[in-house]
């Protein structure tokens, strides 16, 4: 019943956790596409036997490129809805129906996850991370004109039509802001829904460093100049 909902996961060296991230999605009947971004570990083999689509970039291109590859593939497979989901187990499968609801009701084209919409979710965000994310909110708002409550939340839901209009060119992490920019340009109807993030030691270690945030801003500004 969830088969027309395609969950796209970009994975780079997630061999240790990818199987436990994917298994609950499979159990719920979602179609899953894992894009292995040329991992040097056995991310690919870790999924053996699971009924999921597996794509592998021949060279590492970055998370944005991997998500775009997965989205293109999902659309080719006849997806009705596309979900972005992180590989490291920080997202909860229970949040997916909540993200899909506005899409199914025809009230939105894109639904973005936010960890700042409910008090309990908000309390989970570590203080340093909170400052960084709120700074990201301001940067995104200024650069893309879309003012949200969260920045760089990896969980998003798209209708097929909306996904077809998204063309990410920022291969690296700047894609998160680029998506917002395109949502705005294409005048897609966009709402936020609460998502719960599990801050495990693993996902924290893999997360972006503060330095990376500065790089993202520079990437975005260069993008303004070069198409």
């Amino acid at each position, binding site marked *: 019943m969830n*088969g027309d909902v395609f969950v796209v996961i970009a994975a780079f060296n997630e061999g240790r956790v990818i199987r436990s991230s994917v298994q609950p999605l499979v159990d719920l009947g979602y179609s899953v596409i894992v894009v292995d971004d040329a991992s040097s570990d056995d991310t690919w083999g870790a999924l053996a036997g699971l*009924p*999921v*689509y597996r*794509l592998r*970039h021949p060279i590492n291109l970055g998370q944005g*490129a991997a998500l775009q590859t997965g989205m293109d593939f999902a659309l080719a497979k*006849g997806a009705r809805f596309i979900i972005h989901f992180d590989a490291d187990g920080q997202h909860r499968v229970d949040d997916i129906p909540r993200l899909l609801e506005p899409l199914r009701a025809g009230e939105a084209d894109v639904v973005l996850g936010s960890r700042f919409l409910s008090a309990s979710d908000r309390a989970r965000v570590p203080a340093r991370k909170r400052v960084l994310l709120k700074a990201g909110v301001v940067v995104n708002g200024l650069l893309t004109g879309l003012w949200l409550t969260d920045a760089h939340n990896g969980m998003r839901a798209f209708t097929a039509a909306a996904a077809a209009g998204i063309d990410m060119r920022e*291969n690296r992490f700047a894609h998160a802001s680029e998506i917002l920019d395109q949502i705005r340009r294409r005048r897609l109807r966009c709402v936020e829904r609460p998502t719960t993030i599990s801050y495990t030691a693993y996902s924290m270690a893999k997360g972006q460093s503060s330095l990376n945030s500065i790089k993202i801003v520079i990437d975005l500004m260069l993008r303004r100049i070069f198409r």
Partner: protein
Amino acid sequence: MRPVQFVLIVMLLGVLILYFSRLRSGLLDRVVVLALSLVGIAMVVAPDLTTKVANKVGVGRGVDLFFYLAIVGISFAGLVLYSKIRDLDASITQLARAIAAERAYAPPRDDRANDGNSG
């Protein structure tokens, strides 16, 4: 001729010969490179010439004028290169994506899903 002039002219000619023998560039590029090299050699042979030109445009020394122009030129070259690299990046991404899609592993139950959709 002073020794430095000789060295500079030899270097300029060397670059010119390398350019024409190794790179198969377009006619316009060749003309521009040839013209620039000739201007360069002229500047080496007659240094006073640049100072005269500099004075005409309000710069004191020919060296300074050359310095300003060089900075602008290098910045421009950097931008052109950067934009070319971005284009290359985009092409490589497209290629990699096509390869990934072509070699995709599809689970066995995909057939059933497809039958359902097309039926």
